[in-house]
Each structure stands twice: as structure tokens, then as C-alpha cells.
């Protein structure tokens, strides 16, 4: 297989975004390419920007909480904010979003309360999933948002089934589904895209190619030149977009949504981005990648890039940034305080909702647990 040198390629933003098949809107100087600019109203571009900044604020704060031992885990999106927010924003209100695990930004974009998200991070008794899952494993059906699962790829075929079901019921609802570059190797990527093609399901496959699957770079994940080419194997459309360009991402994903909505089938969208942070709070990427590479990618920071664009329009400045940050941080702090004060879920939550009605053996086990001694409060 690969030699050691190949394991840590220096992949620069330039070498990876060149080639005219990568769709881009925002130019280095902050102006936009008039041929590709989706011309979103300015208030909406501002909303996208704020959502990206908020995502970053939340990420940084949660990482701190984890280091302080106040939460158990966080899986962040540093550097991937544009592709997450841009794609989520391109989905129409009635469309569905099936998450991978790195898209809390999309969840909040959909209007999910920050407080509830933080409750999920703490797994307390107001966490909608009752502290049953790890942090960042949220569910939000009311927001037409799926349920995070750890096993890689499983959501992909599910999204196809749901999209098919919606169309079967005569609804104009498109389903988007997120996954990483690593997930393109999974069984369910193959099956999901193949079924999506054959069933002509209204689905948008959103691949966040952040160049790493924990310690494995995309070059070792597949020998394919471009992940978007994998669409050919399924007879569906494949496109590549600069995932650090929120306007480009929005436009490409919206087009895919519209195609799906018109009954023209699924699209695989490869969103080129970069995982600036570790894989999660459990990971230290210095063990496998050179800082050099990371620094070069910092230069393409999607937030800096969008801000430059906003500045060309005089739509944003330091004062507004400061105000927005202060406000958001305060809000988050309040949420954290409240979440920390909440209780653990009830003991009974272990035993309910395994089935629609609790069967005899779980009744017995619940009674045994509740009437037995408590575990030491260890952790």
C-alpha cells in the first residue's frame, strides 16, 4: 500500500480547488463571480454569516467544556462551517435533512433551540433523547431533521427510503443526507447511491470531503480522482463545489434540490473543505498530519472569506461582529449554566421506548433496577 510519504501528503488548498469543475462564487478579493453568484438577498447572506460565526463560537466553547471535563465529548466543524450552513440553507422548509454527526450548525439553522442542543451535550433530563446517546447525537423530527447515529453511512440508504416515501405520498419534499469522505467507502454509500439512482429518489447526497477520516487522508480512502466521479457508477449526477464558499455551496445544493424536486433524480455533491481541528475531542491530529498543511488551510477560512465579501458590500464591520459575538457567547453561557443545573434523566428512561409498549421482561428489569441499590456516582 501507500508508503509513509504518501500518508502525509501536503495538500494545499490551491492544488485541490483548481480545475474548472470546482464550482466557486466568492473570489479571493471578496467580490463574486457574476456568472455564478446566486444573488441572494443581503439579509440572507448576513444570516448565513451569523450562522457560521455562531457555529464556530459553539464549537470552541464546547471544546473548552470537554477539556474541563464538563461534557464527555464533542465532534466539531471548525473550517467546515460554509459547506454545512450553505447546504442546510439551500434546503427548502419542507425538505428533510439527514445528518452525519458533524452538522449541529445545520440543526441550529433549522431553528432547533440552542438550549436543547446544549441539553443534548449534557445528556440531562431535558435532552430530547433522554441522555441515551453520546453528545452530538441529537434527533429533531419536528425540524424535519434526522437522528444522529455513530455507525458510518447508515443514514444514506435511510435518506433514500425517506425521499422515495415522500414522493410516493405525493409530497414535494427532498431529502439531503450528509456524510464524510471516509463514508464513501462504506457499504451504505454504495447501496444508497445505487438505490437512489434506480428508485430515482429525490435525494441530495452531501459529501463533506474534509480530506481526513480520522487519520486517513482521502488519497488513501480511494484511488478515484474525485469523489464526485463516483456518481458515474450509479448513473446519477455528480458535482464538485468549493465547500469553503458558502454561496457556491448554496447554489449547487439548491440546484440539486430543484432537480430532485422536478423528478430528475439524485445528485452527489462533493463539497471540498478541510477539517481544521481534530476528528473529535478524543483525537490529537498532530500524531498523523503536519501542522503546515493545517496552516495553509486556515488561509481559506470560510468565515474570513465570507466576511471579506460582506465588507465589499459594506454589510459588516468589527463593531457588528463584536456585538454579535458577545451576544451569542452570553446566550451560550446561559444555556450551559442551565444545562448543568438540570438533573440526570430518570432511571426509568433506561427501560422505556425500547418497544412501543413495555413488555414483561423490561417491566421486571425496570423494577429490579429501581428497587435495587444505586451505582456509585462514578464517572
Amino acid at each position: 500500500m501507500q508508503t509513509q510519504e504518501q500518508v502525509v501528503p501536503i495538500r494545499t488548498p490551491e492544488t485541490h480547488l483548481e480545475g474548472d469543475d470546482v464550482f466557486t462564487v466568492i473570489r479571493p478579493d471578496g467580490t463574486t463571480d457574476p456568472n455564478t453568484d446566486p444573488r441572494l438577498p443581503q439579509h440572507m447572506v448576513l444570516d448565513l454569516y451569523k450562522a457560521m460565526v455562531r457555529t464556530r463560537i459553539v464549537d470552541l466553547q464546547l471544546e473548552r467544556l470537554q477539556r474541563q471535563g464538563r461534557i464527555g465529548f464533542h465532534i466539531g466543524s471548525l473550517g467546515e462551517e460554509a459547506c454545512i450552513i450553505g447546504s442546510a440553507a439551500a434546503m427548502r422548509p419542507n425538505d428533510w435533512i439527514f445528518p452525519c454527526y458533524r452538522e449541529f450548525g445545520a440543526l441550529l439553522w433549522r431553528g432547533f433551540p440552542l438550549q436543547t442542543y446544549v441539553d443534548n451535550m449534557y445528556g440531562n433530563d431535558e435532552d430530547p433523547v433522554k441522555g441515551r446517546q453520546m453528545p452530538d447525537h441529537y434527533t429533531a423530527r419536528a425540524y424535519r431533521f434526522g437522528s444522529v447515529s455513530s455507525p458510518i453511512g447508515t443514514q444514506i440508504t435511510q435518506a433514500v427510503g425517506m425521499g422515495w416515501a415522500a414522493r410516493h405520498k405525493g409530497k414535494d419534499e427532498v431529502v439531503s443526507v450528509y456524510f464524510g469522505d471516509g463514508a464513501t467507502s462504506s457499504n451504505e454509500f454504495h447501496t444508497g447511491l445505487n438505490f437512489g439512482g434506480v428508485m430515482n429518489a429525490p435525494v441530495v447526497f452531501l459529501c463533506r470531503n474534509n480530506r481526513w477520516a480520522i487519520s486517513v487522508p482521502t488519497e488513501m480512502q480511494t484511488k478515484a480522482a474525485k469523489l464526485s466521479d463516483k456518481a458515474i457508477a450509479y448513473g446519477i449526477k455528480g458535482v464538485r463545489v468549493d465547500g469553503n464558499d458558502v454561496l457556491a455551496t448554496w447554489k449547487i445544493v439548491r440546484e440539486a434540490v430543484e432537480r430532485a424536486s422536478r423528478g430528475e433524480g439524485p445528485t452527489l455533491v462533493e463539497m471540498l473543505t478541510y477539517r481544521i481541528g481534530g476528528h473529535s475531542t478524543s483525537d490529537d491530529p498532530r500524531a498523523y498530519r503536519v501542522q503546515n498543511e493545517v496552516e495553509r488551510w486556515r488561509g481559506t477560512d470560510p468565515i474570513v472569506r465570507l466576511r471579506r465579501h460582506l465588507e465589499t458590500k459594506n454589510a459588516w464591520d468589527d463593531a457588528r461582529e463584536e456585538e454579535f459575538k458577545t451576544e451569542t457567547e452570553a446566550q451560550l453561557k446561559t444555556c450551559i449554566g442551565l444545562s448543568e443545573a438540570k438533573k440526570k434523566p430518570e432511571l426509568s428512561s433506561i427501560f422505556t421506548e425500547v418497544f412501543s409498549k413495555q413488555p414483561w421482561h423490561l417491566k421486571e428489569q425496570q423494577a429490579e433496577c429501581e428497587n435495587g441499590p444505586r451505582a456509585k456516582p462514578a464517572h
Partner: protein
Amino acid sequence: MPEMNLVQSINSALRHEMKANDDVIVLGEDVGKVGGVFRVTKGLFDEFGADRVIDTPLAEGGIIGTAIGMALYGLRPVPEIQFSDFIFPAFDQIVSEAAKFRYRSGGEYTCPMVIRTPVGGGIRGGHYHSQSPESLFIHTAGLKVVCPSNPYDAKGLLLSAIRDDDPIMFFEPKRVYRAVKMEVPEEEFTVPIGKAKVVKEGKDVTVIAWGAMLFEALASAQEVAENDGVDAEVIDLRTLWPVDIDTIVESVKKTGRVVIVHEAPKACGFGAELLSLISEKAFLHLEAPPKRVTGWDTPFPYTLEMEYLPLQHRITPALIETVRF
């Protein structure tokens, strides 16, 4: 009342429920035009069309994964896995996803679906067309597991299963498909999930079986009644999980002796769980060690399959031994 075999009664249940409920969708390999390799879905494609009876690509993970998506949306998919030996490419979707969706989502998303699949040996299928993997699914919290032994129960249980709000593994004993015929109502009726049936009352020993082995258990019960004056009680579990513990415990308390029969290998088979539950709930009533008569702990052989299966010739001596213990 018409006579039906198992294939026909399952077909009848599917047809009824598809007519009654537009949300019921059948999908799987070869379930469409040809009606399934065992012809269980025969005619449904012509009646309900390609959008309700979907011939899928050859990928069990895709069949179950897309069925889960349909169920999450609100449909009632009834996916078919062509042989339960081929369920393993879908194992991740079943045990990691379908089984856990309600729990992990705090009840927001549910996965009502019935995974139909032929099970068991005795049809010259060798390794990969004969296995009985039920215990793997019983071990997985969040799944119900059903296995009818006859056409009547099959129809009633399948109708209950499709209307149930949980994911259900529905194992169809393929050796019984065309071997048993009986009167089955044309119209709808249900057999409750979670209820076993005492198919023969007796006082000397309890025999627990399901699926194709039920008939072997009955044959042995008759044999020992005739030859040895032993009065065996035979229970057809029908639902394997959650098991009807009351019926089992009541019977064992009466007989004090029990023989459990299943085709799957012995080690960690469902027999082990049944034996353990009985030991836990009726220890002081046991007059002999409960016995398991099962498939051997080997892959399923082809030529010698009748020596592998726990058929009458092996159940009968187990009954005698248990009674004489």
C-alpha cells in the same frame, strides 16, 4: 373456508393489508413480477403495481436501509430477505438502526416494519439456504421475533405484525411452505403477538418448539404417548420474543420437566435463553434438568441434513430420558 398452505396464507395476509392500507409497501429481491423465489408475493405486483411491490437491486442492506427510511416517513414497509442466511449484509441496518431508532431518538422516530424471511432447513439447501439465526435478533434489544408454524397462525400473526408499531423479524419456516395445508379464513383476523399456544395438553413433560420443528415435536409426543404412555404437553411459541413466559412457566410448573427443540446451533441458541428463564422462574418445580434438542454446533450440512436437524428421532429419546430422569 378455503384451504391454504403457508405460502398462500402469507400471500393472503399481504394482499389484504395492502388493499386496506396504502402505506404497506413490499420490497426485496425478485418479489415483483416473479413473486419471490418461493412465490409468496405472487400476484401482488400485478395487483398493486411496481410502486407498491418493488424489485430491488441485489443488496440486503439497501432493502432494509430504504425500508427504514420509508418507515421513518410513516409508511409500513414489509421487506423480504430472500433467505435468512442472506440477512447478514443488512445486519448493521437491523441491529444498529431499526432496533434502536425509537429509543435513541427519544421516541421521535419509529421503525414499524416487518422483515419477512424464510428460515430453517430440511429442503436440501446446505450451509446457506438452511440456517436459523433467530437468536441473534432476540439478543438485540428492540426487535420482536415471530415464527409461525402453520398457515392459520402465519396469516394472523403477519396481520398483527404489519399493524404493530415495532420492527419485527418474521421468520417463515420454508420446510412448511407447501407441506401443510389447513383452513384459513379468506377475510382478515389476527393472532396476537406475544402469545404462545398449547397445541397439545399433557402432564408429564413440556415440549417447547416453533416453526417446522413443531411438527416433529408433535410426532414425538404422539410416539411417546403410544409407545411409552408418556403424556407430553406441546407448546408452539409462535412469538419467540418477547416470549410468552406465562404459558411456559405455567406448563413447566405442571409437568416439572421440559424439552426445548430448535434447528439453530445449540450454543447461545434461543434454547439457552428459554432454559435459563425456566430455571430462574420455576427452579423449585423442576424434577429433571431441562433438555435442549437442537441443531449441532457446526455449519449446516447438505447431504446429512436430516442427521443435523433435531427431528423426531432425536426428540423422542430426549422426552423419554427427561421423564425417566
